[in-house]
Each structure stands twice: as C-alpha cells, then as structure tokens.
C-alpha cells in the first residue's frame, strides 16, 4: 500500500562515534538499516611499504602507530616475530616484564573501549571514570618507556632498559584500587536496565559465522568460541601463569561487554602474578645493534586487546630490514563483522556495534 523510501545516510568519516575516520554508507528504511558498506583507508599511511625501507629496529616505531591505543601489544608481536625468525633467546625476567606490560596495555585498551562504548550508548560518567584509570596506566608507561601512547617498548632479545625501581609500588597501588573501580563501572552498567536493553540481542553473530568471518579476540569469545592465542600458543610467560580465558556464549553486544570486563579482571591477575614472580637476572641478551636475519619467512601472532595480531615477516637474508612485512590487524578483520551484525537493527545500534567491535582505525588502515 505504502512504498517506503530508502534513504542513504553517510556516517563519517567525521562523526562523533565512528572512532576515528571510519565511513559508513548506510541505507535506511526509516531508522532500520537495510544496507551497510564500510569505507576505510582514510588513515592509510603505507606502514607495510615504509617498513621495507627501514631497518628492523626502525620498523618497530611503525608498529606503535597501528593500534595506537595498545601500542605495547603491537611492539611485542613485532619483536617476537623478529626473535622467532632469528632464533634469539630472551631472558626470563624480560619475558615476565613483557607479559606484565602487555597486560597493562590490554587494560588501558579495554578501558578506552569501555569509556567510548559507554559514551556511545549515552553513559557519560563511565567515560570519565575509565579515563581516570587509564591515566594511571599511561603514567606507568611513561615511567618505563618515556612515552605514554607510542611506547616503542621492547627490543629484540629483551628490554631496552632495566625495570625502573619506582614502578613496583605504582603497580601495587594500581592493583589495590582497580578492583574497586571495576566494581564502580559494573554498578553503573552491568545490571542497568537501559544498558541491558541497549546491548542484549544487539549485534548477534553466531560462533560459526564469527569463525567464518575471521573475527578474533573478545568478539569471537563473546560468541562462545574458546580461542585465545595466549592459551592456544602461549608466548612470553603466559603459559606459566594462572589465569582463565574469558568466554561468554551470548553472541551479542552484552556478552562481548562481559568478556572484556572479565578480561580486565584476568589481566589484573596476570599483572599481579607476573610482578610477584618476577625473576632476577639479566633483562636482555646480547643482540647486535643492527640486526640481520636469516633468509626465510615467519608468521607470528599474539593476542592483542582487539584479537589476533599477526605479523608475516619475510627476510631475504641480505638486508638489515624486512623484505616484506605484512600486518594482520584484528580490527581490519573484525570490521567485516559490522555488516552482518548491523543489518536489520536501528541507527542507534550501529553505534553500539562499532563500539563492541572495538576497531581502531590506525590498525584498520595501516
């Protein structure tokens, strides 16, 4: 009887809740989404091409700028890739400290996610609470690396410098206050009726679809798939510490929210254990200033806060830099989940779904 008109809405690249320069072409029937096409590349800097003209150490700086809210994880993945191809041994102390730092990085990334996700759904206060704690962590990064956001934290064969003395007390303080703060967030959100209404049954994706779409990280675990690189292929000290994988089988935005909150708790456990069990000894092995790697190729992946972060490194055995460096950014792949998750929902849900995917455009566009 009535023919409804489909309107096209252009969301982004400048939009308050596309988390960077993501652009979505939405097709709307009223407020219901009937079509969605992500347009990316607004932040493409050619990191992979640049890496080919850098030395191995210089290329470390590029990895900071991928997922710029969790640059520690990016550093770790890249450094481990070099070590895997070069067969470089790492002292246990460095391993523990790297684990500790990476988990702090995960916490800061998840805090940023929580802040923006909650703000997208309209819970303004959580945003500021989460940023307060994130500042705390960034202060620690500054103590260790001198940088707050772009850390360039580790070196092949261990760490750049020994662990600063004051850091331990700072981390202990953090471990003391953080569970209470987490309880604050939960009090504001977890059982909040509006929050549940906005996130439950929104952005549903089944486990099968999630695997087929190559989703990873909390997005995949929110669909009930028990896959965490830290458990599957333990690197650094993860295999020696006692922690649990966070899995929920709700398949929706709420489940992913719970997964990330649980991951924050587990990260805190890991941090505490790594700090308590920090071995004595060297913080790095002797490694050449200018690294030369044997001819070969290696794919190494770690569990970044957003999911499986993989580096595919090819060395021709002659140069002092990568012949080819391919980055498998979890955000880039997870972004593919947006369309199947969002179609059929409303405009307001797109915002929630972008938040739940936790994409960082620096990593999507590279």
């Amino acid at each position, binding site marked *: 009887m009535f023919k409804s008109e489909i309107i096209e809405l252009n969301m982004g690249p400048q939009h308050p809740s596309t988390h960077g320069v993501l652009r979505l072409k939405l097709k709307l029937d009223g407020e219901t989404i009937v079509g969605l096409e992500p347009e*990316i*590349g607004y932040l*493409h800097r*050619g990191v*992979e*091409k*640049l890496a080919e*003209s850098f030395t191995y150490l210089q290329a470390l700086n590029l990895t900071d700028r991928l997922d710029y809210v969790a640059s520690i994880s990016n550093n770790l993945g890249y450094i481990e890739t070099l070590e*895997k*191809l070069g067969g470089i041994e790492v002292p*246990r102390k460095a391993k523990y400290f790297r684990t500790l730092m990476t988990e702090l990085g995960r916490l800061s990334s998840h805090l940023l996610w929580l802040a923006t996700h909650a703000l997208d759904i309209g819970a303004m206060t959580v945003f500021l609470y989460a940023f307060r704690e994130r500042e705390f962590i960034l202060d620690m990064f500054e103590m260790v690396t001198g940088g707050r956001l772009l850390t360039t934290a580790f070196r092949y064969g261990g760490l750049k410098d020994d662990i600063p003395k004051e850091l331990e007390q700072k981390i202990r303080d953090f471990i003391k206050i953080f569970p209470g703060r987490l309880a604050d967030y939960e009090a504001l959100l977890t059982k909040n009726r509006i929050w549940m209404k906005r996130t439950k049954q929104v952005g549903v994706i*089944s*486990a*099968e*679809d999630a*695997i*087929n*779409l*190559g989703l990873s990280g909390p997005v995949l675990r929110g*669909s*009930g*798939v*028990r896959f*965490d690189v830290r*458990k*599957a*292929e*333990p690197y650094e000290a993860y*295999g*020696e*510490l*006692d*922690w*649990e*994988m966070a899995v929920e*089988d709700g*398949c929706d935005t709420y489940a992913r929210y719970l997964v990330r909150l649980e991951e924050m708790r587990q990260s805190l*456990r890991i941090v505490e*254990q790594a700090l*308590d*069990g920090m*071995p004595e000894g060297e913080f790095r092995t002797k490694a050449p200033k200018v690294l030369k790697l044997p*001819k*070969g190729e*290696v*794919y190494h*992946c770690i569990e970044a806060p957003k999911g499986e972060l*993989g580096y*595919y490194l*090819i060395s*021709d055995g002659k140069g002092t830099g990568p*012949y*080819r460096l*391919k980055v*498998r950014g979890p955000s880039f*792949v997870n*972004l*593919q989940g947006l369309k199947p998750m969002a179609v059929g929902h409303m405009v307001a849900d797109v915002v929630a779904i972008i938040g739940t995917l936790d994409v960082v455009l620096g990593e999507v*566009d*590279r």
Partner: protein
Amino acid sequence: MTEEKKPTTPDKQIDALKAEMKKDEPGKTVSAPRAEGTVSAKPKPAGPPKPIIVEQAHDPVSEDWQKKILDVLGDKAKDSYVASGEFTIILENGSDFPGIMALIHENGFDYLSDISSVDYSKYEGTPKHFGLSYHLYSVADNHRIRVKVFLEDGETILSIMDVWATADFHEREVFDLMGIVFTGREGLRRILLPEDWIGHPLRKELSKNEGNAAYTAKLVKKAREDA
C-alpha cells in the same frame, strides 16, 4: 564445557574439544610446564572454574596431523615443508584452487587468519613473480598451516570468498596494494587507497617514494591522459 552450556559452538568443534579433553586427561603431558617461581594466584572469587582446554604448547613439527592433511590433499599439494616451526603447503594456481581450499577447510582448518601477498621479483630463488600466503588455523585442533601459491605477473587467481567469508577484505587489500586480480567474486575494488589511485604501491618496482607519494592530482590527470 558441555554441549548444553555452549549451544552456539559448532558441533564439530565441540566433538573435537571433547576428544582433546579425553586425550589430555591421563598425564597432562602436553600442557606447558609451570615455573617454580610463580606465586600461586588467588582463586577466582565467584563461579566454578572453567576447564582450560586448548592449552598445549604449539609444536607442529612432524606430527600426525600434517601427514593427515597431506594424505587428504594427495598430489594436489605440490610441496610441503616445515620451517621456523611452521608448516607450509605449496599449491598450484588453477581452476580447482577454491576446491582444494574447501577440502582443507573441511579437514578442520576453519579459520582464515590472513592472506598476504609478496612481490618476489627481487628475491633470490623463487619460482614466480608473486607469492600469496594463506594463513589458516584450526580452532578446534589448534594447528596452524600456511598455504602458498606462486603467481606470474598478470596471472589471476580464483577467489576463496565462498569458503571463508573473511577473504573479502583480504583479497580486496591484496588487489589494492599488490595488484593481483581475484576472479569469481563480487565487488573486487580498492579498499585502502582512493578509487582513482594509479598503480599498486607494494610492488617492488616502485621505490618508497613512488609507492607512497605518487598520488597528486597532477599525476592522476597525466596518467589519465596517457591511458
């Protein structure tokens, strides 16, 4: 983890995980060694502890599963080797390529991590101009595998989007940055670079500057006139 608790997990995966549990139960030999120095963590405050299933260390070298997958593939696999602890299978590019990939998918490798492209033109000892690496993973069995295909310049390859939906973005990226054309699929267009960009920057014949800075209105106009 029971079937009732995780109804959304694919049956196949559950079965595999169950088998894994049974295998692991007697000795727990495969789980990673615990360090003496670690302090025992406090027990998780609430809820029963979930069993950790996929915990064995990654040791893919010369195992049964590699033989199994090679047996399945038969002479379709041109070559295979293990290097840096990673298992690689080399396939030929051909009309049955998606079929072979589907076969690998059926044999447990349900997760496509990544598709990478390499320009081997300045690399010693490679058969062809380009290499495509498909990094596959088996969520249930915790195995990784790399499938490599070599291509000449200008050679096209069939898309595997029907096997793994995730291949969409990866193939578009490879096309965009390396210029390898995937046939048999919809919507192969640039993804990271602007639609009117000329050339494919990750190719080795372009220097860094040419690859990254070639995009000016003037150059685009000139190239259009040339074309």
